[in-house]
Structure formats: structure tokens, C-alpha cells
């Protein structure tokens, strides 16, 4: 026991020491690990702040382009990029299209600290984003929402009122005064329709409000339309009742006049009838005397009938009396009946007067009297019937029932339906004052429901980039025949240009001004009888709405310069383009082809001003003052005059030839064909290629290079060649050209003959002897030259008609392999050629999107080869590794 105690006494300090040392060691470890962790964090934080980043790519497929980097450098505000790639369409699978976009967005976030990237792939996350956007939209659209709320309240309030009114009118006393106008049923229908329209409107509004981002402007438009229609109907009812309320009084007042007029007709007829005697009485001896008297009497009948008709019309005025049931007798109105009587009687009077002449035979006179004796009593009976009808009409119009009297009492004071009309008018007035939403919110509403979009939020602005902008279709028709893989519809990634350009336009002021220069006289209001045709060229400026929008989105201002001057008002014509809106904003002329002059023949007065050299001179002056220009032109259809074909004249053709050494061959049309299997060496034209010519053979010029793999279609292109002996000193560089050896493309000279050949399915080939032009030639060029020590620059795009709304807003039709024509998205990429040209001319090459990287894919692998590869590298190679292990194990065991 003593020993045990001794031992325990001696062990205690030792254990304590061990515990202390363990604790110390443990503490040391914890501290050292914590220190290491801290060091890890500090080093990483520092490396995140100060890092070196180098893109080692050779093809530039994943990184940001230089232009994108430059644009990002300029953006100081915080940016939030949200990709919403949740499409369920098989041709827009997020798993196929999102990764590349995500890479690029992450690359942007790495490049700029103030960029936040969000990838939305689930419906829940999408709903969150939409909820946030909805709050922004709701705040901006408070006025719109007030109108919508007002409309809903209106339905709540007026719905019951219309019900009550409908019931009231349904109970309208049968045979009541208004029944003769069939008005109660009509008003009942108006009330019922009013209620239904309001109900339908609010139901649709409720449905629209449940959308993620309601289209408030459209909803307000629909509210306006519904309320305006309803207001129109109610005002119509109200004014009709007000007008009718005066009718009984007027009828009373006019009764005497109208009944007298009707009686006068009848009594005049009776007198005339008495004059010629009854049907069976003997014929008068002095037929001449009787006829003279009859002619006077019967003419009086005609006049009195005419007077009765006039008085009835005067009584009815422009009002609703004409709709009264008794206004018509056997479906013919009473005045018309009197006019008929008057007309017929006048004829009889004319005949009677004709027989009064002395040369007339007695027998003829007597025959007339015999006939008249039969006819006149019939008119007398008719006049009696009309007189009765007039009396009935007056009776019905003057006998007002009590119910109607009450309604009229209100109508006379202009109070009827005012309780319904006034709120409608107030809401409509309020709606007319609603300010439009900012453009970026309209774009948001329009595009948010599209498949696969990218949302950009910078400050209080939002922008949306659609799928086709990030993934445009790839050029497909330049592949060699038989290369099916390349002819498939494939998309190329164009995200960095699309996103960065959008961010730039959302943050920066426009850095250049595009002056749309044209020669047009479009009458503001063309009245039908004026028959004044607008004077416009082949590319009318009003048809460039899409181009204008795209230029504005590309951070460019668009203004206009109309070279047209009205005759006699030459002073009003501007000698130069409008002054730039900002001093440091360079201008670029975008010159449309002018209309061809069509002077009137000698001796005839000239209609308006015509295109002349004076306009060319104005443009020349501006260009020589260092303002660059883009000429849009193309194939111009020949004119047919007196059986002759006259080539069309391009207004700037001479200028470009003489000043720049550029020959724009507007009389030729570039066509693209395909090899004809029936006739080797010859070609055939697919009809769709006539309108949609796929051509992306851009040179390495800075404007065209990024477009080399973009899907672009052209219409009515014409070739451009250099003038061979030109001494202009201009340097011409091709942008879009057809190289030598591309036999399937050429420019035709005789369009009629060509179309005939195509229609007859003849094999096609270029015929240089008849004027066809074979490659090489260009369809887009840039020219530079020194003018008075200043460098002047122009670009000529001979594909001008491809920029019209008609071309850019409609689908491209393409012949599929099974021979059917399939629609594809519109060729919107065409505008990039124009935008790049403007950027280049204002010295902003850095903003020209780099375009999709050109990367050679893995070659076509024959199925047999692929199978071998799979067996060797997919199976044999791992098995070999495993076999080595087995051998090693066997050797080791031995």
C-alpha cells in the first residue's frame, strides 16, 4: 500500500509534465497550422490583386479579342452579366452553347474586377432574376401600371352599371316610342358589349400581369383601344338619344305643314283627274282645250309632290327620323315616294304639253286622254296611301310614352350615360399622357422571353443579347461541293464582340455620326387625287430602319442630309451635311444611290428638281474636307423605253470613276451558281440563290476579316473593278472579293437572257464575249487618296439593297437537301459590314469585333478508321497497362 502510494506520488508530476508538453505541442501545431492557413490566404489575396495573366492561345478561340479588351477598359461602372440559357429546344441545347459563353463571361470577370457573372441554368434561378427585373420594370412603368389599375377599377365599377343598364333596356316597354327606331335592342347590345369588352380587357390584363415581365406599353395600348371603342359607342347612344328627344316636339310643330303638303298632292291629283273625266265617260269634243287644262293641273301635281318630298326631308334633317319605322312605306322612304310620283307625273305633263301643238291629230289626243283616265286615278290612290303614311309617321313621332319621356329628360340635359362616359374619358386622357418607357426596358420586355439570352445590367440600364447575336449562323455555302458537314447549319461563337459592343453602347456616348445622305422627295401627305409618286432611289431611306437601329446600338448617332431641293427654293437646300451634334464627334456619310433623272420632254414644264452634277459636287466637297463616306450601290435594273433596253445610270458612277478610279459596274449583276451534274463544267442556279446569294469571301482587310466565317447573304450585288488607266492616285483595297478561279460566281450582263435560260433549265456558264464579267472582281472596296495634303477615304459597298428592311427582316429561304425550301433567320449579320466600315472610317478599328476564330476541326474520319482507333486506344491501351501489371505480379510471385 505504501509502495503504491509512493509510486503514485512520484507519477503525478510526470503525467502532469506529459500533459503540459502535449498541450504545448498541440498548441504549437494548431498555431502553426493557423499561421500556414493565414499565410495561404494572404498570399492568395495578394496574388488575386496583383497578377500576371497571359493568353497562350494560338488561334484566339477562348480568350477575349483585343477589341473586347479595349472596350472593357473603358467601362468603369459595375456590370452584372447574367446568362439565361434554359432553352429546351433541341437546336439550342444549353449544354452545347452555354460552356463557351460561360468561359467568355468568366474571362470578362477575370479581366475586370467590377464585373459580376451569373449563370442561370435552372428555372428557379431564372425566376429570381426575372423577379428582380420585374421590380425595376414596375418602378419605371408606374404610370403604365396606374392606367392598368385604373382600367381594372373601371371594370369593377362599371361592370354592374352596364348590367343594370342592360336590364333596364331589356325591360323597355314593347311598343314604346323608341321601338320605332329599333333602338332599345341596340342600346341593350351596346351595354352588354361594354360589359363584356371591359371584362375581357381585365382578364387579358390579369393574364399579362402574371407574365414574368409584362409588356406594359402594349397593355396600355390595348386599354386605350378598348376604352376608346367603348367610349365611342356610349357617346353614339347618348347623342342619338339627345337628338331623338327633340323629335316629338318638332313633329308636333311640323305636323300642319307636312299634312297640308300631303293633302295638297292628293287634291291636285283629284283636280287633274276631274279635268280629263272618268274612264267610261265619253271623250270630250274639244280635246285640245281639255288637254291644255289637264297639262296645267298635272304639272301642279308634280310640283306639289316635289314640295312634299322637300318638306319631309327638311323635317328629317340629318337626324335619326329617317330610321323611324314609319319613315318608309313598303321599304321606300316617304320623300322618295313623293319624288317618284313627281317624276312620273312630270312625264305625263310633258306628254300632255306635247299634244297641245296644233299639228297633233285629234285621234292621238283622244288616245292620250283615254290612257290618262286610266293612269291618273292610280296615282291618286297612291298619293292617298302616302298621305296616310305621313299621318301615321307624325302620329307615331308625337305620341311619347312616359318611360321614354324620362329618358329624354336626362338626354336633353346631356346627362344620359355621362356617369359611364366621363371616367372613360378621364382614363383615356391620363393614358395619352403616359411617358414611353426607356428604350432599354422595351428591349428587355421584347427579348426576355426569347430562348437563351444574356442579360447585361450596368447602373440602371439593362440590355439583352439574343441567342443569334452570341451564336450567329456560320457561313455554309463556301464549302466545296460534297462537303456536307460544312454545309450544315452551324453556329459560330461571336459572344465577345456581341457582349462588349453592347456594354460599350450602354456606357459610352456615341463616338461617331452617320449621316444618311440621299436625294429624295417624298410628299408628306399624298392625297389620292394628286397621284404624286415619291422620288426615291433604289434604296429608299425610310426602308433603312433596321440599319439605323443597328447603327445606334453600335454606339453611333444617325442623322440625315437630303440633297433634294424643291424648285424655286434652292436657297433652302443645304450645301453640306447637318453640323455634328457634338464637336468631337466625327461624321461619316452613308450615301444612298440617287434616283435616275427623268427629265420631261422639251417644252413640258419640269416637275420638281432632278438629280444633277450639282449634288455630286456637294458630296465631292464634303469628302475632300476629310469627311469619309460609304457609298451604297448595287445592280441597277435597266429601263425599258419604247422597246429599247437602256442601262440604268448610277448618279455617283462618274464621280467614283474619275475621282477614285473605281468602276462600279451597276449594269452587271453578280450571281452564284452550283455545278450542274448534267453538264460537266457548266452550272445551274438555285432559285433561292437569286435572292439570297451566300458570299463571305472577305479579304484580310480589317473590315472584312472578322466576317470571314459569318453567314452573310446578298441581293442585287454588282461588281466593282479598278479603272485600268486611272491617274487619280487612289489606293484601292478589296474588302469583299471573288477571287480568280471561282468559276461558279460571275456577273451577268443580260439579265433577261439569263432568266430565260434558267427558266428553260439550260446549263449555265459565263460568257465574257457577251459582256459577262468573270472573277476576279470585288463587291466591296475601300479607297484612300491625298486631297490637298489631307487623306480622303471612301468605301463602296455594291451590295446596297441587302441593307433594306425588306431584306433584313424577312427569313432567308434555303434549299434543303431533300429539295424543300426551308426558312432560316434573316441575314442580320449583313449590317456588321456596314458597322465595321463606319468604325474603320472614323479610326476606331479597335472596336471592330474580332469575329469568330477560324479553327480547323478534326477531319472526316472514315468509320473503319474510327473503329480501329477506338479498339486500339480505347480498349487495347488500358488492357495493355493492366497486362503489364499482371506480368509484374506473376514475376514477383515467382
Amino acid at each position: 500500500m505504501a509502495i503504491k502510494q509512493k509510486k503514485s506520488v512520484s507519477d503525478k508530476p510526470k503525467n502532469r509534465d506529459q500533459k503540459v508538453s502535449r498541450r504545448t505541442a498541440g498548441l504549437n501545431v494548431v498555431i502553426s497550422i493557423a499561421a500556414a492557413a493565414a499565410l495561404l490566404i494572404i498570399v492568395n489575396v495578394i496574388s488575386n490583386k496583383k497578377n500576371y495573366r497571359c493568353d497562350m492561345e494560338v488561334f484566339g478561340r477562348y480568350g477575349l479579342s483585343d477589341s473586347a479588351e479595349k472596350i472593357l477598359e473603358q467601362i468603369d461602372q459595375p456590370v452584372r452579366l447574367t446568362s439565361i440559357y434554359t432553352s429546351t429546344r433541341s437546336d439550342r441545347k444549353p449544354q452545347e452553347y452555354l460552356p463557351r459563353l460561360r468561359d467568355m463571361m468568366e474571362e470578362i470577370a477575370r479581366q475586370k474586377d467590377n464585373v459580376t457573372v451569373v449563370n442561370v441554368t435552372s428555372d428557379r434561378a431564372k425566376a429570381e432574376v426575372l423577379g428582380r427585373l420585374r421590380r425595376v420594370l414596375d418602378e419605371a412603368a408606374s404610370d403604365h401600371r396606374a392606367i392598368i389599375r385604373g382600367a381594372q377599377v373601371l371594370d369593377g365599377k362599371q361592370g354592374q352599371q352596364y348590367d343594370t343598364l342592360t336590364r333596364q333596356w331589356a325591360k323597355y316597354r314593347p311598343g314604346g316610342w323608341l321601338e320605332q327606331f329599333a333602338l332599345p335592342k341596340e342600346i341593350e347590345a351596346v351595354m352588354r358589349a361594354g360589359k363584356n369588352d371591359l371584362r375581357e380587357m381585365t382578364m387579358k390584363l390579369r393574364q399579362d400581369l402574371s407574365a414574368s415581365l409584362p409588356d406594359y406599353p402594349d397593355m396600355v395600348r390595348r386599354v386605350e383601344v378598348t376604352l376608346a371603342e367603348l367610349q365611342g359607342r356610349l357617346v353614339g347612344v347618348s347623342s342619338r338619344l339627345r337628338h331623338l328627344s327633340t323629335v316629338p316636339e318638332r313633329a308636333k310643330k311640323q305636323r300642319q305643314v307636312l299634312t297640308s303638303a300631303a293633302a295638297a298632292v292628293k287634291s291636285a291629283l283629284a283636280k287633274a283627274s276631274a279635268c280629263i273625266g272618268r274612264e267610261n265617260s265619253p271623250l270630250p269634243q274639244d280635246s285640245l282645250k281639255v288637254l291644255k287644262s289637264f297639262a296645267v293641273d298635272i304639272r301642279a301635281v308634280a310640283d306639289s309632290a316635289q314640295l312634299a318630298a322637300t318638306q319631309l326631308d327638311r323635317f328629317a334633317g340629318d337626324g335619326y327620323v329617317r330610321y323611324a319605322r314609319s319613315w318608309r312605306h313598303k321599304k321606300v322612304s316617304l320623300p322618295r315616294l313623293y319624288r317618284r310620283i313627281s317624276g312620273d307625273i312630270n312625264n305625263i305633263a310633258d306628254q300632255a304639253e306635247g299634244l297641245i301643238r296644233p299639228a297633233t291629230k285629234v285621234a292621238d289626243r283622244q288616245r292620250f286622254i283615254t290612257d290618262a283616265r286610266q293612269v291618273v286615278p292610280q296615282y291618286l290612290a297612291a298619293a292617298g296611301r302616302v298621305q296616310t303614311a305621313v299621318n301615321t309617321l307624325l302620329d307615331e313621332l308625337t305620341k311619347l310614352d312616359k318611360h321614354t319621356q324620362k329618358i329624354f329628360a336626362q338626354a336633353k340635359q346631356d346627362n344620359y350615360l355621362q356617369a359611364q362616359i366621363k371616367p372613360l374619358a378621364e382614363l383615356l386622357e391620363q393614358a395619352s399622357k403616359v411617358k414611353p418607357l426607356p428604350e432599354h426596358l422595351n428591349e428587355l420586355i421584347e427579348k426576355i422571353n426569347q430562348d437563351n439570352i444574356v442579360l447585361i445590367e450596368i447602373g440602371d440600364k439593362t440590355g439583352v443579347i439574343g441567342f443569334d447575336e452570341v451564336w450567329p449562323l456560320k457561313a455554309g455555302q463556301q464549302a466545296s461541293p460534297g462537303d456536307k458537314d460544312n454545309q450544315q447549319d452551324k453556329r459560330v461563337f461571336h459572344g465577345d464582340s456581341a457582349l462588349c459592343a453592347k456594354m460599350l453602347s450602354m456606357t459610352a456616348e456615341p463616338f461617331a455620326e452617320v449621316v444618311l445622305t440621299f436625294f429624295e422627295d417624298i410628299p408628306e401627305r399624298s392625297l389620292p387625287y394628286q397621284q404624286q409618286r415619291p422620288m426615291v432611289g433604289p434604296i429608299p431611306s425610310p426602308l433603312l430602319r433596321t440599319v439605323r437601329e443597328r447603327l445606334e446600338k453600335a454606339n453611333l448617332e444617325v442623322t440625315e442630309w437630303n440633297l433634294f431641293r424643291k424648285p424655286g427654293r434652292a436657297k433652302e437646300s443645304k450645301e453640306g451635311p447637318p453640323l455634328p451634334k457634338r464637336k468631337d464627334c466625327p461624321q461619316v456619310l452613308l450615301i444612298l444611290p440617287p434616283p435616275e433623272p427623268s427629265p420631261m420632254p422639251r417644252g413640258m414644264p419640269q416637275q420638281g428638281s432632278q438629280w444633277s452634277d450639282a449634288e455630286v459636287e456637294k458630296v465631292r466637297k464634303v469628302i475632300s474636307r476629310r469627311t469619309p463616306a460609304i457609298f451604297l450601290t448595287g445592280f441597277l435594273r435597266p429601263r425599258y423605253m419604247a422597246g429599247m433596253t437602256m442601262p440604268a445610270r448610277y448618279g455617283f458612277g462618274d464621280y467614283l470613276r474619275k475621282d477614285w478610279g473605281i468602276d462600279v459596274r451597276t449594269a452587271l449583276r453578280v450571281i452564284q451558281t452550283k455545278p450542274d451534274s448534267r453538264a460537266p463544267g457548266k452550272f445551274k442556279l438555285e432559285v433561292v440563290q437569286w435572292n439570297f446569294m451566300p458570299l463571305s469571301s472577305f479579304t484580310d482587310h480589317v473590315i472584312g476579316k472578322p466576317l470571314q466565317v459569318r453567314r452573310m447573304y446578298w441581293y442585287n450585288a454588282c461588281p466593282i473593278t479598278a479603272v485600268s488607266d486611272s491617274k487619280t492616285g487612289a489606293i484601292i483595297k478589296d474588302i469583299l472579293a471573288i477571287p480568280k478561279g471561282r468559276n461558279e460566281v460571275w456577273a451577268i450582263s443580260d439579265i433577261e437572257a439569263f432568266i430565260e435560260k434558267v427558266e428553260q433549265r439550260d446549263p449555265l456558264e459565263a460568257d465574257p464575249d457577251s459582256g459577262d464579267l468573270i472573277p476576279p472582281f470585288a463587291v466591296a472596296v475601300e479607297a484612300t487618296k491625298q486631297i490637298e495634303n489631307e487623306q480622303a477615304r471612301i468605301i463602296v459597298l455594291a451590295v446596297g439593297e441587302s441593307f433594306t428592311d425588306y431584306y433584313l427582316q424577312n427569313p432567308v429561304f434555303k434549299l434543303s437537301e431533300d429539295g424543300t425550301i426551308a426558312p432560316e433567320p434573316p441575314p442580320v449579320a449583313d449590317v456588321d459590314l456596314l458597322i465595321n466600315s463606319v468604325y474603320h472610317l472614323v479610326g476606331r478599328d479597335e472596336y471592330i469585333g474580332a469575329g469568330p476564330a477560324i479553327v480547323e476541326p478534326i477531319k472526316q474520319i472514315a468509320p473503319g478508321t474510327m473503329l480501329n482507333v477506338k479498339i486500339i486506344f480505347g480498349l487495347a491501351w488500358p488492357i495493355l497497362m493492366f497486362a503489364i501489371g499482371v506480368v509484374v505480379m506473376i514475376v514477383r510471385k515467382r
Partner: protein
Amino acid sequence: MRKVLILAKRELSAYFYSPMAYVVAAMFLLLVGVIFLWGVQIPFLKIEMEPVFRSGAESTLRPLFDVLAYGLAVVVPLLTMRLVAEEFRSGTIETLMTAPVTDAAVVLGKFIGAFVLYLLLLVATGVFFGLVVVFGKPDWGVAGMGYLGMVLLGAMYISVGLFASTLTRHQLVAGLIGIAILAFFTGGLYLVVQTVPAEYAQAVSKLNMITYFSDFSRGVFDTRGLVFFLTVTAFFLFISVKVLESRRWR
């Protein structure tokens, strides 16, 4: 350093004298081959990946590397799980601890041994890159950076696996711990990024090992990634040493 190399050599020999290296290598190459030549289709996980090597596809190994970055989070811990745990289990750790080598040298030697094996596995994937070269025109910059990223990522994974191996005497447990840690810092954080608000998502994604790898896989050299991989590797090696040291005083 000589001792470290001797230990590394011993470790490497141990791999090759056991069936482990061959089985793992065969599995690894099979996995790579399947992804490269057949693609991956797992409908219930909504994973759908076309073969990397197919007519008309991009000439690159990038999709393969991107998938492998996740796949290695499972493969590497299987390689490293025995490194220290086996020593614990067989009792040879006592001999090693009493030998004239420091704990750091032991950890470093084992790390280098496993890393060399990993490099050999990576070299074996060269045949697939060879196919891309023969049938396409790859971007050498992207390929080079991709391999560099795989090397750095592998080193980091091995250090994590090694750390897991120091924690237990059971290989399987070590393997599972390693997989769990790596799964959290790769796929787990990816899921976290998807759920947290965007403001935090960017910060969370900086903890994700794959975030830095993706730079390399698309051909970008960024010192942030280099520093991250090296420091994390060093950190896990350091704490592995500390765990090993703790055996002396625990």
C-alpha cells in the same frame, strides 16, 4: 534532399511492385479513352457529353481535361490512400519514424513518389493528344497550358490525398476522406455557387479548385492559379507533416 529522393524512389517502386499502380493506370486510361472516344451519357444526372474525338469536332483535349479535373478528385485519392495509412497499418511507420529522416522528408518523399506516378499517367494520355494532332490542328498553346494545369491540379490533389492518408490507418477511410475533401472543393463548391446570391457566388467560386484550372484549360496562364495550386499543395503537405509529427507526442 537525397533522402527525400530515396524515399520517393522507394515509394514509386512500391507502386510498380504492387498491382495497385497498374490497376489504377488501366482504370484511368479506360476512363480517359471512354470520355475521349465515346463520350459520356448519364441521362438521370443530365450529363450528356459528346466524344471529344469525332469528325468535325474542335481539335482539342480541353473537354477531356475539364471532365478529368472532376474525375481525378476520385482517382487521385485512390492512388494516395495507401501512402501513409499502409505504413500505419503494417507498423512500418515506427521504423520510418526512427530512421534518420525528418517527418517533412517522409511526407515530401511520398508526395514526389505519387506525383511521378501521376505524371506517368498523364504522359500516357499523350497518345490521345497524338490522335488530335494527326487528325486535326490543335492549338498548342491551349494544349500546353492544359497539361500544365493538369500537373498543378494533380499535385494539389495528391497533397490532399496524402493529408487524408496521414489521418487514419485504414486505406479505405483515407481514400474516402480524400475524395470528400476534393469533392467539396470542386463539385460541392460548384453547387454552392449555383445556390448563393451572385454577390457571394464570385467569392465562393474563388475557393473552387476548378475555377483556377479552367483558366489553364482554355490556354490562359494566370499567376493567380499558379499561386493557388502551389500554396494549397504546400499547405496540405505542411499539415500532413504536422499530423505525422503529432504521433510523437500524442
